[in-house]
């Protein structure tokens, strides 16, 4: 008995050590960016900052907020995320709810039509040509419509409706003369808050973080979402109009580097802020989806 206890103890030690290592590997890059964003750019560029901010300053943040491109991108992204999530939610539920009714004639074929698109697609160019033909190229609709429905999310929602809404509820509502739409709005949705939270989170995160559709469908930079602006600043190094005309070249380079850390934080904050609130829901969402992939 004693021997078993001892080996159990070493096993536990190993588990905790390993978990601690994983934790550090995940956390250090995040903490580093956070620390650097609040530090004196000089010290960051000389490699003095690691996990604790040095020469605490908000200089980099002030510059981010003074940057017009970032502001415009931020406002655009808020719009795309709000409008896009709303469209996505409505379309997803309009598909998932009817398809969750077991007696709907032809539901298997419609499901097949939908699921097939997960495994085969027309691809980048035919979709691009379609967007042009529809006349929504270079308009906000090019970001809101083509990616509106995620088939994975649709399946999660459908599985939820199938398993969590008792069919007696439908039958009695039907007998009371309720129409399909009334039943959906007054009975099903109020019982589906968990799945609505999950879908909202999934869609909002995906839309907020997307840059690809904007890259190919939007030429007009006034319409660009934050991710495109970030790419220009962070990866292509476009920081010319930073309002630093009167300072020297070295200073300019320094500020251009410093702003990168704070720009990363500012662009990630909205998602990281909503995350703790919806966290318990999205674990649930993954589990619902896992019932039948």
């Amino acid at each position, binding site marked *: 008995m004693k021997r078993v206890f001892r080996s159990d103890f070493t096993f536990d030690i190993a588990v905790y050590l390993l978990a601690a290592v994983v934790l550090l590997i995940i956390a250090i890059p995040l903490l580093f960016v956070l620390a650097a964003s609040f530090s004196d750019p000089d010290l960051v560029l000389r490699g003095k900052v690691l996990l604790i901010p040095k020469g605490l300053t908000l200089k980099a943040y002030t510059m981010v907020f003074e940057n017009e491109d970032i502001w415009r991108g931020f406002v655009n992204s808020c719009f795309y995320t709000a409008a896009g999530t709303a469209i996505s939610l409505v379309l997803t539920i309009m598909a998932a709810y*009817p398809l969750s009714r077991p007696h709907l004639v032809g539901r298997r074929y419609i499901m097949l039509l939908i699921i097939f698109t997960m495994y085969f697609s027309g691809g980048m160019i035919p979709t691009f040509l379609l967007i042009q033909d529809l006349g929504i190229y270079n308009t906000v609709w090019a970001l809101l419509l083509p990616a509106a429905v995620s088939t994975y999310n649709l399946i999660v929602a459908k599985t939820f409706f199938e398993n969590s809404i008792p069919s007696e509820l439908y039958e009695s509502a039907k007998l009371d003369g309720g129409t399909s739409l009334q039943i959906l709005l007054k009975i099903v949705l109020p019982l589906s808050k968990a799945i609505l939270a999950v879908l909202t989170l999934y869609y909002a995160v995906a839309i907020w*973080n997307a840059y690809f559709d904007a890259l190919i469908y939007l030429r007009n930079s006034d319409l660009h979402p934050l991710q495109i602006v970030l790419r220009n600043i962070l990866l292509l190094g476009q920081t010319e109009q930073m309002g630093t005309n009167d300072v020297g070249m070295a200073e300019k380079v320094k500020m251009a580097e410093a702003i990168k850390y704070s720009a990363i934080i500012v662009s990630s904050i909205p998602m990281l802020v909503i995350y703790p609130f919806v966290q318990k829901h999205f674990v649930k969402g993954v589990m619902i989806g896992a019932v039948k992939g």
Partner: protein
Amino acid sequence: MGNRLRKTVRQIRRDAGLYIILAVPVAWYLIFKYVPMYGLQIAFKKFNPTLGIIGSPWAGTTYFKQFFNSYYFADILWNTVSLSVFTMLIGFPAPILLALLINEIKNTRFKKAVQNITYMPNFLSVVVIVSMLSLFSNRDYGLFNRITSVFGREAVDFMSKPGYFQPLYVFSNVWQYMGFNAIIYIAALAGVDAELYEAASIDGASRMQKILHISIPSIMDTILILFIMRIGSIMTVGFEKVYLMQNNVTISASEVISTFIYKNGIQKGQFSYSTAVGMFNSVINFVLLAGANFVSKKTAKTSLW
């Protein structure tokens, strides 16, 4: 027979409201998913925007041959497949191992902390991840170089060395998605009957034996399903991240099919040619998926359809 037909018609009429609701998303699927599939035919045509998809003259398999015979065909195919296989070899088992590890943590608060922190990076955008890679790779003050310098290594700009392209891509992927992808396994492990573990303890099984003989077998179905789906996307390398990571110096290692399609199709306007390349990619994916599904159905009785 007449009765059954009448019953079906009655059912359809009863559910008319549902069909009206359903019509909107179905229309979306037809327009945004099936019209592009119809548009795939331009891979076999000499597409001319003024003539349209239907009006353009047929070109047979010219564009496919052009791609297969091009000098870069082997390189691009190799980059795509090797990056994807590499990503899968490291990225697929990582969340399983993490879930098994988390499942062994007894202290509930520490367990929660590990879970919550490991799935945080999932919420960062690709632009942010690649920006972090590029900042960390800086020779003078990048995080990577400061860590390697502790071990006495010379500073390297990792982002501009073709040899580092794949490892950077793969390990940053693991870093970002491992925690989130582990959730599904953690949930499956939480559902395992506790009596199984108790019975094993009475029989004198060690913790490791319990993992091997109880935990892993009980999540095997989940692993298989996810594995089949993964096989079906072996030729799909996320365009977004590769495109952001690549630069002229690393192009020999970083040009993959999707970035090639973007440059030739969207940027240079070679619509037919790049559609053919894309179609080649989709078809291989689909064949691999169907093959993996078939094998799994025959051997493990688990399948997607």
